[in-house]
Every structure is written in structure tokens, then in C-alpha cells.
């Protein structure tokens, strides 16, 4: 505790700033920092260096080297720069390195120096060359702003979705602005530039001159300007050594400071923490670092080496050849606890805990003091919060220990804030480790979120750590471990020196069937790397066959795709593959493929039936499916053809097919139909009326009804209509005609093959009881009772039934005995029954 606040520097009355070392850098820099283009990504991101040969010597004989280091100075990549002169480097929010070339082309590299893509900032930029460029971050992503040789600005607010915007011209601008920056206001990117004593704001539509309120007089030029991390504040450094600090909207002045140094600073950045009232700017010259704010005095540091400032959300990182430091305003909780002679509850609690460890009774005194003021809860909270802001694990531990100690004396203190802080700190300490080199502060970590942090670990190929963190934080598998494994697998397939089998096996071993892992995505990546065989191997691990299909199609493995689609049971997918195959294969091969896949075949047939009849025929032909071919022509004979000749021809083809199919029955039936069709046509010609398309039965009936009995007989003989049918037919027809005379003649023509009961029935249907009775007498004994009942002769029916001694018949007759008229008959039956029973 004694010298804990030794590195605290007061700025004014209310704030302290401290600077502490993050890493001692043992990178092996061959160049001085000042000779390099430098870009360091925020949120403890990587550092890129490119020795800038284009600035000094005109003819660069040696190609420069682009080097990428982690924040702790571990080399990540190193590559010879083979493209054109680079004006500016910068990191995108996805930690991709953007290299802006003089000709306006932006090359995008990954963290490991892998080339990703490139894009151009437009023709105008190409013609006028790039004078200066900035990479900036907005809520939409990362943008690029370019100042061309013609002193015009072009910018794109999001390089992921490249839309170039040429900013309006500054009237009368002859030379390059002395300094400029991008602002982000109202969801749009603007440019603020200084020309001599004037400031101009460029938005999409116009250029307007602006004046910062309360600017000291006598300014003839602005040398440096800085926007805060959140685009809320702006600082201006003038040639009089005067610093103006205000809001970025230029509507309000916060404070000003006169440092009396007229030399232009190398860098100027804001150093403030979110939700803090203190505003401060860090200004760096060659050997001097100054923190200025709303105070008459500034804090000054001496720089021993070339240093570079990286603005962060809650402070400034400063790295040089040998060290990497963090400068920030001491957070309130820490200040309260550690300020000399602080009586804040947190400070007392920390003291109490220390005494407790020494087994001193003072612990109790301190504790009482806090409790008397009723501030124990607050004390615990303070300790927890302060722990979060400490960089050194031993300090974190002692603060957390104090919090844990205080918690014991509280009844209902919700444990989650404590637990979460412990977890967060463990994660933070792990990633701050030298080998990982992501020096995130607690505030940055919370702003970045764990998901993004995991993404960044994946980007650095630190898969095991990422997985450990997921497991430690118990993130759901789909978002956590599975996702990371999938990324790992995607990386793994790019290892070209490992054989397909080994890669596939290794991936399967690791991934198993972890939920949410899509083998097809990994396979797609493998295919993207040109490893088709590996992709196919990986696809085999994909449990959802449907997912395999699109990639298989892309890889031109259509037949495999077809069987996978069928496996998936998704007919739509099958159909998609079929159409692919149809275009890809020649007809013969296509049909052969179909032949082996009955499910696909029937699907395609269904489609053809409605859309491509000819193809359907070809399909049957190819399969020698004569049965279906026959059916096909039969259908055609009444659906497609109009003329009788055409129809007969279609039937003939059908009959031939049926013979080939050894379906003699169908063949014969078809031939009969041909005969019938021709005959019906002739009948229409000769007799008039409508015959075509009637069934044989109906044709004969029509003839009988039309009085052409002879013809009807002839037809019946020709087509061998069975007697029974003919009798039924004539019976019905004659009854319909009510030609009772003819019917009687017919009934006597020979013995009826259908008996005479139908005659009775049909006469009764026509309500001709008289005729019905004639036939009732001729009905055979078996059906006599029924016939008699039909004509309503109950009495006689009873007699017959009694004579037959048939119990069922007796019951039947009895059920017909209604009213008084039949009472006698009913009696008779009852008596007969009784008699029968006696016997």
C-alpha cells in the first residue's frame, strides 16, 4: 500500500492519472518506429509495421517488409511487400489490416499476413494519387477516408459494403490542409479540416466554415486535431501552443490549455474513460508526453524512446521499442480505496481484511466502523469494482479477498456480481498473458463482449484457449465450443501438407457430433481450398443428408447428391438435383440414373405426366415398360386424339405394347375397343344419334331403346356378350320403354338365365302390378315367396311359405302382414308355426 499510489499523478483537484507497464517488448525491431508506418488496432489489438522506404529515398532498392506483432510484441506475420507504395495502414473492426496504396487501391490482409482481398477507392483517387488516408471506425464498421493530390476527400463509411462518397470541394483550397480528421455525427461520417486559421466541415452535401467557440485569438494555423474514441469530443492544437478542447459538434468549449510549445506534436489523442467527467488529452512530441485537461498544470512524462500512442476506450496505450504501457485516469472505485488516508468504506474493508489476516483485533474495529455507517454493502461493491480495474493479479486478489471477507458479514448480498467478477478477471488475466497479448481492460472487455473476444481468439488461432474459456464460462455449446471447433476445422482443412484422410479423421475426432457443428460448412471450406476429396470425406460426417446436397452439386457430384437428397426424404431437394442432372447429363445417362432411383423416377414421372408427355413416353421406352407404355397410349386415345382414325391408331399401338408386355387380356380388350369404336362410328353414320365412347353395354342398350333389336342381337353375338348380361340389359331397356308386349315375348323366347324374379321386380318398379303378377307365377320355388310379397299377394305368399316349411320365409311374410286385412294370414302362419314346432 505504501507506494501503491506512487505512479498516480494528479491533474487538477479531482483526478489522478496513472501509467503502468503492460508488457516489456522484446520484439526485434530492425527499424526505428519513426521510420515506419505504424498501425495498432484498438482493444489491445495487433500492431502492424511497414518500413516506409517511399518517404525518404526516391528509389527503393530493397523491398520493405510488412510485419505484424501482437500487442506483447510476439511476431505474428512477416512478409515482403511486393505491391505499390503504401500511404497508410489501419486495422478494421474485424482486425483486418487495410493498406492504402498511393494509387487508391486498398489491400486487405488477415492477422497472419494472409491476403484477403483488395478494392479500389475509385478513378478520381487513382488519377490524383493518395496524399493521406485514415482508417476510422463507426457503428457501421470500418471506414476509409482519403485525401487526394487534388485536395479532395473521398470516403467509404464501411469497407465491408463499399460505397464511395466523394466529399464536396473546399472553395479556394490551394494546398493540403494542415490537419484533418473524420467525425461521425448523426450516423454519417464527416470530415473536419484546417486550412490556415480556418476550419471547414465537409458533410455529404456541403462544405461549411466552422469556428470553435471560445477559441483564443491569434491562431494562424492548426497543427493537430484529435477526436475522442466515441466521436464526442474534439481537441485542436494551434501554432501558438494552445490547445482547445470541446465537443465534436463545435458547439461547446470544455476547457483550454496553453502549453507554450510551438513545435507540432507527433500525436495527440484523447484520454478519458466512459462516464467520467474528466476530460484530458495526451500530446506527444519527440521526447515529451503531456497530459492536459481542465487544470492549470499538466502532467508531464519524459519519453526515452520513440513512442506511439494508441487511443483506447478508457485510456491510451503507449508503446515503444522496449515497453508497452497504459495511461488512464484512475477509476473512482480505485481512487476511493487507495487514495492516501481514504476513509471510504472500501478502503476500510481492505484494511480490515489485512488486519484480519494478521490476526489483529483491529480488523473488528474497522469492520465495526463500516457497519456503524451502514456501508458494508457499498464497501464490498467498491472492492469488487476496484478489483476489475487492477492490472496486477495480486492486487485483484487482495481486493477480492476483502470483498469476500466483507460479504461474510452481510445477510443478503447477491453473490453473482462477485462470482462474475472472479470469472471475468480470470478470463482477462488469461488473455493478457504475454503469450496471448491482448491487454484488454475490464471496461474494454465489457464493451467488446465475450462473443467478440472469442472471435478474436479464433482469429489468432488460439482455439484451445477459446474452448477453455467457453467451458469455463459454461457458454451454450452451439455458441461456444461447437462454434470454435468449427472454426478450427475450417482452419485445419487449409493445412495442405496433411493428407485428406488425416485431416478428415482429426476433424471428426475433435468434433464428433458436437451439437451445432455443420460439417457441410467445413466441407465447403475444404472445397474452397480446392480439396474436393477432403470435402466429400467431411460431408460423410454430416448427419443431415439434406445439408450435403448443395455442396455436392457445386462439386459436380450430382449422382451422389441425388442419393443424398433421396436419403433426406425432402422431395423438393430431390427435384432440384434432378433438374441439375437433367441439364448436366445426356438424356440416356439421365434416364439410367433415374432407373436406379425409383423414388426420383416416380417424382420425375409425376412431373412429366403434366408437363412433358413425350419424355414420359421415352422413359417407359427406355425401361421396356410395355405395360405402362400401353396405358400411356390408351390414355392418349381418349385424351389427346380427336379423330376416330387417330384414336384407333393409338389403340393399335397400345395393343402392340400390351402384347409385348405379355398382357394378353389388355391387348384383347384394346382390340375389342378398336372394333367397337369403328362400329360405333358406323352406327352413328347409319342410324344417327350418339354412339361413340359408349360402353358396349350402353351401345347395345341404346340400340334396343332405338328399336334396332336385330342390330343389338348382332352386336351381342359379335362381342360375345354373355346371356345373363343380355337378359338383364333387354329386361331393363324394355321395361324403360314400357313395351310390355315385347317384354313378354322376350321372356318366353327361352328359359331365363336370370330367373323371373327380376321381371317381377322391374315391373313393380314401373308400378305395373298386372304385368308383375304374370311373371310372379313363373318365379322358381326358391324365390317364390319374395316374388309374391313383391306383388302384394301376402296370402298366397303365406301359403307357399307354409308349404316350404321354411322358418325364414315365414318370418318374412309375417313382417309383411300389416293391418287388419292380413290378420287372417298372420293367424294362419302362427298356427303353421305352432304345428311345425309340435312335430
Amino acid at each position, binding site marked *: 500500500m505504501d507506494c501503491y499510489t506512487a505512479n498516480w499523478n494528479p491533474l487538477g483537484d479531482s483526478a489522478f492519472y496513472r501509467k503502468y507497464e503492460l508488457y516489456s517488448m522484446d520484439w526485434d525491431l530492425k527499424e526505428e518506429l519513426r521510420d515506419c508506418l505504424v498501425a495498432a488496432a484498438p482493444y489491445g489489438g495487433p500492431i502492424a509495421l511497414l518500413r516506409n522506404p517511399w518517404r525518404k529515398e526516391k528509389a527503393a532498392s530493397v523491398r520493405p517488409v510488412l510485419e505484424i506483432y501482437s500487442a506483447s510484441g510476439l511476431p505474428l506475420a512477416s512478409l515482403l511487400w511486393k505491391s505499390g507504395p503504401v500511404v497508410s495502414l489501419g486495422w478494421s473492426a474485424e482486425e483486418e489490416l487495410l493498406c492504402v496504396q498511393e494509387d487508391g487501391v486498398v489491400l486487405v490482409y488477415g492477422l497472419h499476413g494472409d491476403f484477403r482481398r483488395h478494392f479500389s477507392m475509385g478513378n478520381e483517387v487513382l488519377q490524383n494519387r493518395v496524399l493521406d488516408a485514415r482508417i476510422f471506425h463507426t457503428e457501421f464498421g470500418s471506414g476509409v477516408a482519403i485525401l487526394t493530390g487534388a485536395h479532395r476527400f473521398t470516403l467509404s463509411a464501411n469497407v465491408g459494403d463499399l460505397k464511395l462518397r466523394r466529399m464536396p470541394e473546399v472553395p479556394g483550397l490551394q494546398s493540403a490542409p494542415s490537419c484533418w480528421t473524420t467525425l461521425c455525427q448523426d450516423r454519417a461520417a464527416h470530415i473536419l479540416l484546417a486550412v490556415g486559421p480556418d476550419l471547414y466541415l465537409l458533410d455529404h452535401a456541403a462544405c461549411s466554415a466552422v469556428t470553435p467557440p471560445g477559441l483564443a485569438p491569434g491562431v494562424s494555423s492548426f497543427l493537430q486535431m484529435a477526436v475522442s474514441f466515441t466521436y464526442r469530443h474534439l481537441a485542436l492544437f494551434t501554432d501558438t501552443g494552445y490547445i482547445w478542447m470541446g465537443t465534436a459538434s463545435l458547439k461547446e468549449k470544455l476547457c483550454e490549455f496553453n502549453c507554450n510549445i510551438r513545435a507540432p506534436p507527433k500525436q495527440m489523442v484523447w484520454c478519458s474513460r466512459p462516464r467520467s467527467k474528466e476530460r484530458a488529452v495526451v500530446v506527444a512530441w519527440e521526447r515529451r508526453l503531456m497530459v492536459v485537461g481542465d487544470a492549470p498544470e499538466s502532467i508531464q512524462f519524459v519519453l526515452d524512446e520513440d513512442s506511439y500512442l494508441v487511443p483506447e476506450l478508457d485510456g491510451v496505450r503507449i508503446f515503444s521499442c522496449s515497453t508497452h504501457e497504459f495511461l488512464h485516469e484512475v477509476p473512482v472505485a480505485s481512487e476511493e480505496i487507495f487514495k492516501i488516508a481514504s476513509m471510504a468504506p472500501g478502503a476500510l474493508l481492505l484494511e480490515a481484511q489485512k488486519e484480519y489476516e494478521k490476526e489483529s483485533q483491529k480488523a473488528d474495529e474497522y469492520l465495526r466502523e463500516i457497519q456503524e455507517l451502514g456501508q458494508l454493502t457499498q464497501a464490498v461493491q467498491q472492492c469488487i469494482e476496484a478489483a476489475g480495474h487492477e492490472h496486477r493479479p495480486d492486487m485483484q486478489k487482495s481486493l477480492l479477498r476483502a470483498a469476500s471477507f466483507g460479504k461474510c458479514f452481510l445477510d443478503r448480498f447477491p453473490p453473482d456480481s462477485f462470482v462474475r467478477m472472479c470469472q471475468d478477471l480470470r478470463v482477462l488475466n488469461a488473455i493478457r498473458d504475454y503469450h496471448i497479448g491482448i491487454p484488454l481492460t475490464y471496461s474494454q472487455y465489457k464493451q467488446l463482449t465475450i462473443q467478440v473476444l472469442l472471435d478474436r481468439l479464433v482469429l489468432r488461432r488460439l482455439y484451445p484457449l477459446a474452448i477453455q474459456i467457453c467451458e469455463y464460462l459454461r457458454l451454450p455449446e452451439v455458441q461456444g465450443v461447437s462454434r470454435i471447433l468449427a472454426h478450427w476445422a475450417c482452419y485445419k482443412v487449409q493445412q495442405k501438407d496433411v493428407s485428406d484422410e488425416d485431416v478428415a479423421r482429426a476433424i471428426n475426432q475433435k468434433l464428433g457430433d458436437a451439437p451445432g457443428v455443420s460439417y457441410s460448412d467445413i466441407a465447403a471450406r475444404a472445397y474452397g481450398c480446392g480439396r474436393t476429396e477432403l470435402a466429400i470425406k467431411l460431408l460423410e460426417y454430416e448427419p443431415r443428408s439434406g445439408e450435403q446436397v448443395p455442396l455436392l452439386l457445386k462439386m459436380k457430384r450430382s449422382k451422389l447428391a441425388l442419393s443424398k437428397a433421396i436419403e433426406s*426424404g425432402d422431395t423438393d431437394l430431390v*427435384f432440384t438435383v434432378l433438374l441439375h442432372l437433367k441439364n448436366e447429363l445426356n438424356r440416356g445417362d439421365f434416364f439410367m440414373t433415374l432407373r436406379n432411383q425409383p423414388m426420383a423416377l416416380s417424382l420425375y414421372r*409425376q412431373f412429366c405426366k403434366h408437363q412433358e408427355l413425350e419424355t414420359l413416353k421415352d422413359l417407359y421406352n427406355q425401361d421396356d415398360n410395355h*405395360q405402362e407404355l400401353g396405358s400411356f397410349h390408351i390414355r392418349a386415345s381418349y385424351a389427346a386424339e380427336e379423330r376416330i382414325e387417330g384414336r384407333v391408331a393409338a389403340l393399335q399401338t397400345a395393343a402392340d405394347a400390351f402384347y409385348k408386355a405379355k398382357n394378353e387380356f389388355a391387348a384383347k*380388350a*384394346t382390340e375389342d375397343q378398336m372394333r367397337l369404336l369403328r362400329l360405333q362410328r358406323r352406327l352413328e353414320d347409319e342410324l344417327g344419334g350418339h354412339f361413340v365412347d359408349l360402353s358396349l353395354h350402353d351401345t347395345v342398350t341404346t340400340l334396343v331403346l332405338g328399336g334396332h333389336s336385330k342390330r343389338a342381337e348382332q352386336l351381342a353375338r359379335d362381342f360375345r356378350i354373355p346371356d345373363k348380361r343380355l337378359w338383364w340389359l333387354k329386361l331393363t331397356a324394355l321395361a324403360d320403354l314400357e313395351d310390355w308386349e315385347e317384354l313378354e315375348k322376350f321372356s318366353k323366347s327361352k328359359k331365363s338365365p336370370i330367373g323371373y324374379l327380376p321381371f317381377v321386380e322391374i315391373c313393380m318398379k314401373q308400378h305395373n302390378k298386372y304385368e308383375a303378377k304374370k311373371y310372379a307365377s313363373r318365379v322358381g320355388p326358391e324365390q317364390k315367396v*319374395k316374388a309374391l310379397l313383391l306383388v302384394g299377394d301376402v296370402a298366397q305368399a303365406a301359403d307357399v311359405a307354409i308349404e316350404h316349411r321354411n322358418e325364414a320365409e315365414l318370418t318374412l311374410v309375417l313382417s309383411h302382414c300389416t293391418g287388419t286385412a292380413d290378420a287372417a294370414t298372420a293367424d294362419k302362419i302362427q298356427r303353421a308355426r305352432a304345428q311345425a314346432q309340435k312335430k
Partner: protein
Amino acid sequence: MAFPHRPDAPELPDFSMLKRLARDQLIYLLEQQHEVDKLYKVENKPALSSNEQLCFLVRPRIKNMRYVASLVNADKLAGRTRKYKVIFSPQKFHACEMVLEEEGVYGDVSCDEWAFSLLPLDVDLLSMELPEFFRDYFLEGDQRWINTVAQALHLLSTLYGPFPNCYGIGRCTKMSYELWRKLEEEEDGETKGRRPEIGHVFLLDRDVDFVTALCSQVVYEGLVDDTFRIKCGSVDFGPEVTSSDRSLKVLLNAEDKVFNEIRNEHFSNVFGFLSQKARNLQAQYDRRRGMDIKQMKNFVSQELKGLKQEHRLLSVHIGACESIMKKKTKQDFQELIKTEHALLEGFSIRESTSYIEEHIDRQVSPLESLRLMCLLSITENGLIPKDYRSLKTQYLQSYGPEHLLTFSNLRRAGLLTEQAPGDTLTAVESKVSKLVTDKAAGKITDAFSSLAKRSNFRAISKKLNLIPRVDGEYDLKVPRDMAYVFSGAYVPLSCRLIEQVLERRSWQGLDEVVRLLNCSELAFTDMTKEDKASSESLRLILVVFLGGCTFSEISALRFLGREKGYRFIFLTTAVTNSARLMEAMSEVKA
């Protein structure tokens, strides 16, 4: 007789959620359009609307697409520009888009999906209203609807919790089930931890039991369906029922109190029940005779409306009954039922065959004739070649030659087939037939063929005891078993299977039956280990019929449920009956 459920019978799940889901989705889809002002039926004729945009709500069929395309093209020819939107229900198929593309209108039409697959027809009956399922799958081998079935099951399990016990039989069942499981796995976690509401699911392909679907129905609801055709849970009663000159559309479900009491009854009881009901009603009306003013006021305000409603319903159903009686009590219906029973029991096959022949010769009804032929074929394991040929010839002569295609369809679906003749026997047979007269030969052939190959159906029937042995008259008023739905002559095979499997909680011990059904690989039981299901949910059973179920089957299972304290819920691709099955197989001249 009303059917009181056992007091411990579980409550049915609430299906109104399904209705609400479907309705909201449709409203959403239609609201994206501007105002939909008029609905037209999609028919093959030009749309008369002069509206600026047309919206089609269709099944994803190629035929419908061609219709839409022709409309669009006609508009184009006439120089008219309109907006077109096609809403596919229950889902869009790639083939449909293909057709639109081939017809050159793909760019003019926007497509949408209405994932409406489950229509609650009644408190215990969900229908997918896909009558085409039967033909598509069982005839054409088209598996497009399997996905729809799987989606429907998935929807049910998300709404009503996971299904702890699943049983199934049939190829389509198996595929649907597997696909559904895949869906569940992919969306893991949604149903996890939910308490199951439905304890058992039983899936069944229609082709496992064609026989039941082919029989004439004699319970009231089935009979109404056979006679008047129930569409989407409602029926149009013509003038002969309403005894006025207008026809009347009646919703048939549990809400109709009168109907609810007679729907599952054998028809022979219905008339008696209705007249009893009429007398009661009269008595209630009569009560007002002795009333004073105050009582009368009470009566009018409270009871009269209910009585009038009941009165109206009663008269509708009495009308329907009379109409059915008129049609059915004729001699031929008795004969028909007698023949059916003979076929089911497997005696006097020759007489039945002659009956069918006469049926055809007299052109009674093409569908009925076909149905009887199929019933004969299935119960006898195919027709003997001679009958096969002669019946078909007769049929073609009676009803037209295009039915050659119908026969080809029926053969493919296994509904009407030819017995493969046993070689040795035919040799003997031909020798014998030379010696005796034709008629006798027929009988001998029968005898031989039944010796040669006992029909599968017959064996199954014996194993499962489908033909109850009855001593004396079967009392249809107080049914003993599910056979009452067929006048006590036959227990529906499908329902018996369900009963047996539920009893055993698996297919164990039914191996022989499964083999006889040719489903050895296709019967499965799937139970989840964790048993969170409450005893109440375990008595709630979802029965899924792929290819349609009949009202007789529903009645039979409702009866079983009452006996055993279960409640059954039915999910079917469509409610079907013998006529619909036959229609699906028939080729008719366009």
C-alpha cells in the same frame, strides 16, 4: 344412448390453438396484399375479376400452376398488367416454380407459403385435408407429402409436448416417422423438458388395412358420409332430407348435441333413439300446458331456444335417416351386406363372385362394383385367373373401356390382383374340370385354391380374431366389441392392431401378423427412457392414418377408448371411405 366416458378418461388437448395459428398466418399473408375483396374458386376458367391484383391460394400442384400461368398469359395477351401472388398451402414445391418458369411467368408472380396442415374437424379429429395423398403415395409412389406429415407431427409435438411412446406400421409411416425424428433432432431443445400431453402415438399406412376401408359403413356418421359425402366436417343435405326445396348445409361435430349422441351408433339403433328423443322433446314442450304466466315466461326465455335448436337438429337427422332408409333398406342393400360379410368370413366365395358379376351386369354402380371386386381380391389374396379375366371383361363392357387403366392402377396398388396359380394344382384341376360340369369345376377350383394358399387376410383374421364368434344374435344396442361398427360381423383390422399394440406396449408377439401384412421391416416401437409422462397423458393416444381413415374406424376406436378409459385423437391425411378410395384409383375420361 349418449356415450359417457369413464370418469378417469383424460381431457382432450385444446385444438383451438391450431386454428388460431393457421388463421393468424393467413391473415398476415393476405394483409401483405392490399385488400382482398373477393374469393373465387380456382377452376379452369378465366377469372372475371377486374381487380388490379390476383391472389391464388392453392395446393402445390402442377395443374394449378398451369392454370395460373394461363391466366397470366391471357392477361399479357390482352395487354393487361396485374399483380399476381400465389400462396401455396401447406408448402411450395420446386416443381411448381419450375412450371411457372417454363410457362414464362415466373417473374410476374410472387410466391408465398401458408403452412397450414392441420385442420381440427372436431374435438378429437385433425385432418390434413390432403385427399390426394392416397393416390400420390399409394399409386404413384410420390413421396412429396411425407415431409408435410413430418412437419405436422413436429408442430403437434411442439404444441403438446414430446411423444413418449411411438408405434407404427407401414413404409410411408416409417419414412414419415424418421423424417420427423430428424426434424426434432435438428431443433433440439424446443420440446425438451416439456411434459408430454399425449402419451402414445400410433402411425399406420392405409395399405396395411384396405379391407376395413372397403366395407360398407353402417354406423350413422359413416353412413352419412357414404350416402351424402361429408366435406370438411359439414354435409349438404339435399331436398329429399330437408323436405323443402332448399338444401341445407349442416356442420357435423360434437357441437351438434343430437348428432353427437348418434354418430357412433349402429344405424339400426338410430331411428329408435331419434323417436325416443322426439317424444322427450314433445314432453318438454308439453310441460308448458300447465304453466302459469311466470313459469311460461321463464320457459320461453330459458328453455325454448334450446328446445327449438334441438328440434331443428332432430328434424334434420330424422330426415337424413329416412333418406338413408329409403336408399338402403331395399332388398339389394341387404344382399350387398350379406355378400360383404361372406367375403370377410370367407365362405360361399362362388356365390359372392356371381353376385358381383350380376352387380356389374346390371350396371348398378361403377364404384360399388369395383369396390366389391377389390374386397374379393384382398380377402382371397387375389382373384383366380378365370374370375380375374371374366370380371374385368364384364366390367369393361358395362362401364367403358377406359377402365383398363383403372385396373392397371388397382393392380399396382395391390387392390385388385390375380392369384399366381400353383402349377401342380392347376394340372390336377384341368384334368378334373374335363371330367365334371362347369359349375362343379368352379367349386373344385375354389377348394383347390384355398388349399394352395390360405389368404393372408384370412390368416390374419384368424390370428387377430377379427370375425367374432357369436352365439345367437349380436346385440347392436349394447356392443361388446369393435365389431359392432360392421353389424358384429368384423372387427376392423386397423383398430384391432392398435388395440393389440397398445395392450402390449410394443409389437412383441405380433410377429406373425406383421409378417402376414408384409411389413416385417416396417413395424417399429420407439419408447423414450425417461418416463415423465403422467398416467393421464398415457391414456391419451394419437392415431395417425396415412392415406385416410374412415368414420367407422373412428367410431370403433372411440368405443375402444370408452371401454378401456383411453381417449383417442385422430390425425388423418383426409377422411375417406370406399367410394373415395375407388375414385382415387379410377381413370375417367377428362
